[in-house]
């Protein structure tokens, strides 16, 4: 009897979560709210919530309020897949806003595709992510573009001829960026003097850096996540390497400077937007974000906001709220005035837009240049 009672207790919340309110549209979100790249998920989530609050305050979508269910994937691919399955089968969400990391999106997107639930990734830049199928979209640029931005920047702005690459082999995002950078930089007549790797979670990079030092490069491309990059910058400076480090949007976190301290200053990375922009869409977003959270939004927050807005706009335009109708409208997104630039989704369901290069200066990011596709 006691056992039966306990079993019932465990089943009850499951039953309760199945009941759905009629005047609400539930949207699922999963992201790394904990784990080694937790600031990514937390920022994205803040951006999404800000967008939802605004939409709901303005009357919602089709007269219904948007309700957000956020699950934590702990920064693990398998957890992301589990989270999406749960959002679809248990919470019966109308659409999904995906996470930041490409590896996790690759695990999660095929599930949404199979169930016919529209999936919008705010910031997964690996090209393979949207190849999962025609229900998978993203509002950011893709790695080949981001890699070529830095290749162009290295050659034209830094006047670099010899570049070393230090990539995270366990990370799809990092490998994709490194490959794109190498191809483009060679095409421009530059030389990749060495291409070495580490694994996320490593703390000692001196072996790789000593090897890089022996090749005496003009710049080093480190397209990893901020946790490792902070330590890499410190150890590079300890070894007396003066060449600037370059990276991608995976650097974009406040923790970068906390971990890297002075060593990270003066280095460059490509990003989706800059807070120094004078575009009214950006200044307005920053003002609202600061009012709500009392902090400056990073690029991931901006992309989370954009993803939510684009999804809501597509739902508003769609004749009904079936996955198919929303998908069709998402695919028609054109010149959407977003914070991270005008967004048009192309036939591969990727956003086409420009990137900026910024320089790290303590907690500030100095705007250097904009590169258009």
């Amino acid at each position, binding site marked *: 009897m006691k056992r039966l009672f306990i079993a019932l207790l465990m089943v009850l919340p499951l039953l309760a979560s199945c009941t759905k309110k009629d005047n609400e549209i539930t949207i699922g979100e999963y992201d790394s709210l*904990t*784990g*080694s790249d*937790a*600031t990514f998920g937390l920022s994205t989530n803040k951006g999404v919530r800000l967008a939802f609050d605004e939409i709901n305050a303005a009357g919602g979508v089709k007269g219904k309020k948007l309700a957000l269910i956020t699950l934590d994937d*702990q*920064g693990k691919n398998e957890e992301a897949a589990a989270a999406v399955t749960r959002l679809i089968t248990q919470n019966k969400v109308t659409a999904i806003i995906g996470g930041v990391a490409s590896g996790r999106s690759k695990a999660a997107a095929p599930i949404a595709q199979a169930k016919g639930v529209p999936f919008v990734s705010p910031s997964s830049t690996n090209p393979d992510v949207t190849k999962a199928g025609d229900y998978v979209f993203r509002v950011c640029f893709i790695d080949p573009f981001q890699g070529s931005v830095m290749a162009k920047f290295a050659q034209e702005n830094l006047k670099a001829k010899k570049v070393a690459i230090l990539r995270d*082999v366990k990370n799809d995002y990092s490998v994709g960026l490194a490959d794109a950078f190498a191809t483009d930089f060679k095409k421009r007549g530059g030389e990749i003097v060495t291409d*070495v*790797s*580490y*694994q996320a*979670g*490593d*703390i*000692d990079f*001196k*072996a*790789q850096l*000593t*090897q890089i*030092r*022996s090749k005496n490069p003009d710049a080093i491309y480190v397209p990893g996540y901020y*946790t490792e990059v*902070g*330590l890499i910058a*410190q150890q590079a400076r*300890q*070894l*007396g390497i003066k060449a600037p480090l370059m990276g991608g949007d995976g650097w974009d976190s406040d*923790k970068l400077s*906390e*971990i890297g301290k002075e060593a990270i200053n003066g280095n460059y990375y490509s990003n989706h937007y800059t807070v120094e922009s004078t575009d009214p869409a950006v200044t307005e977003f920053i003002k609202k974000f600061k009012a709500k959270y009392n902090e400056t939004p990073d690029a991931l927050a901006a992309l989370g906001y954009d993803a939510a807005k684009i999804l809501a706009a597509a739902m508003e335009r769609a004749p009904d709220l079936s996955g198919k109708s929303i998908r069709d409208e998402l695919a028609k997104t054109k010149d959407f005035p977003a914070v991270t630039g005008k967004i048009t989704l192309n036939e591969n369901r990727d956003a086409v837009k420009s990137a900026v290069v910024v320089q790290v200066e303590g907690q500030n990011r100095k705007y250097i240049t904009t590169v258009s596709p």
Partner: protein
Amino acid sequence: MQDFVQHLINGISLGSIYALIALGYTMVYGILKMINFAHSDVYMVGAFASYYVARAFGIEAHPGVGTLAILLISSMVCCSLLGVVIERLAYRPLRNSPKLNILITAIGVSLFLEYGSQVVFGADPKVFPEVMKDFVIFSFGNVELKSFDVTVLGVSILAMIGLQFLIYKTKVGKAMRAVSSNASVASLMGVNPDKIIAFTFIVGSALAGVGSVLVGMKYPKIDPLMGMMIGMKAFVAAVLGGIGNVRGAVLGALIMGLSEEMVVAYMSSTYRDALAFSILIAILIFKPAGLLGKYSVEKV
């Protein structure tokens, strides 16, 4: 040539970090014949203890000897307490059960600490307080010898000598060896095995505490899973040197650090762990009991 010397320094400095953790593994094994898988997580808790102590005292940005002393003491005390509690609650009740049960319990305790800490401390990485200023002791061309590298190596060797002295020259050490060879006979001779085993855990865990501060000062990023990989490598280093042998642990750890470094330097960084571990497997094929371990035939 300069690069080779730099790789040598890097490898030894990495190895001495493994050595500090390996000493704890080997010591508990030497006395209890059990592998305390939770050891590397005690080390992680030590790192967080010093992080929070530094914040409580407001000294996270005041590097100096005073800071080092405060953090070392708080981390050692915290780790020792945790070590004793783990021994009392998880291992002692199982002391007379089969070895396999204790081993699995140890893995359980390890996972409990890793994932429990994610709840308590949060899973995002924290920045370890600045304990000391790093400075160059000696430089030759491109090669630099830093104070941190020398400190970590020095502390590992001191800890090794200290343990050696404790185990072979003191009364407690004699009791430890007695418990190790036969606990029930030792208790007939007036040794209290419970006390001796608790003491072993205190010393082993305190070493993990020292390790956590030294590693934190060199690599200032700490997170609840930081013990996983370093623990695995330190454990392998202890086996390589001959588990249960104090000098072997340090030797094994240095070889481990050097082989990892050299694999990255002259072979492939992608296959670092695979190649480094193959070297270890090769050594163990020729010396199954480890480099300094004694291979004893069990009499039946």
